[in-house]
């Protein structure tokens, strides 16, 4: 009896065919889903990075370093600009002096 049932089951299983019905829009929906998740991850990346950056900056060690770097850069740039201004002004004063003793320059 049992053998008969088993044979019948085997036959049914052999005859059973699965034919999945894939919707037409399946592929498009999959890609939409992937794109949406990617966008959500990208959007979350910047706030995370900023959060991390600001947390690091708040540490005394980094804050002190940043201030020191800012001071150095400012001093360097100011020094270069000041040298340039002094050179330009010196040339101007030199011209003024030359003009002050040159009668021909004065009479022009």
């Amino acid at each position, binding site marked *: 009896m049992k053998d008969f049932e088993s044979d019948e089951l085997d036959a049914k299983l052999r005859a059973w065919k699965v034919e999945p019905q894939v919707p037409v829009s399946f592929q498009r929906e999959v890609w939409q889903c992937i794109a949406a998740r990617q966008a959500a991850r990208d959007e979350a990346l910047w706030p995370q990075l*900023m*959060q991390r*950056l*600001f*947390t*690091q*900056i*708040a540490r005394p060690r980094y*804050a002190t370093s*940043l*201030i020191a770097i*800012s*001071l150095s*850069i*400012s*001093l360097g*740039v*100011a*020094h270069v*600009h*000041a*040298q340039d*201004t*002094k*050179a*330009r*002004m*010196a*040339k*101007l*004063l*030199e*011209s*003024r*002096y*030359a003009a*002050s*003793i*040159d*009668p*021909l*320059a*004065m*009479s022009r």
Partner: protein
Amino acid sequence: MKKGLLILLLVAGTGISTYCIYYHYATAPVMTMVTQLGGEMEWLRREYHLSDSQYVRIQAIHRDYALKCDLMCGKIGIANAHLDQLLLANKTYTPEVAAGMKECMSVQGECRQALLTHIYAVSAEMSPAAGARYITMMKARIIEPAVGREVVTSESSK
């Protein structure tokens, strides 16, 4: 997050104020010379490292020369005006135009001589090295105006 933002603001503020303070103090002396009357004499004192006594003597020479310079300016102006009138009145190179030209050149030559005398007098009051540098500068500035400015550069503009 707020603390980090505050620190960033502090860093930016420190940088900007450091720049402004340094620039202001570094350029203050030269800016004072540019804005004050007679700042060019102060420039001369600094440029040629004049001692107080040298500076006083050079100032005196400069004052004496300024009076002569004004007179010469007047002479040049009169000679130029006269030549201008002659050039307008004559259509050819007449003896009058020639005389006018000669007068202008004579006055200008007189001025050049006085200028050179002044330059040598000033340089004589300086140290030998500074005096030589002063003559080189004035030679390029006044006596040889066609010589390019790059030929001579003042010490402070280097």
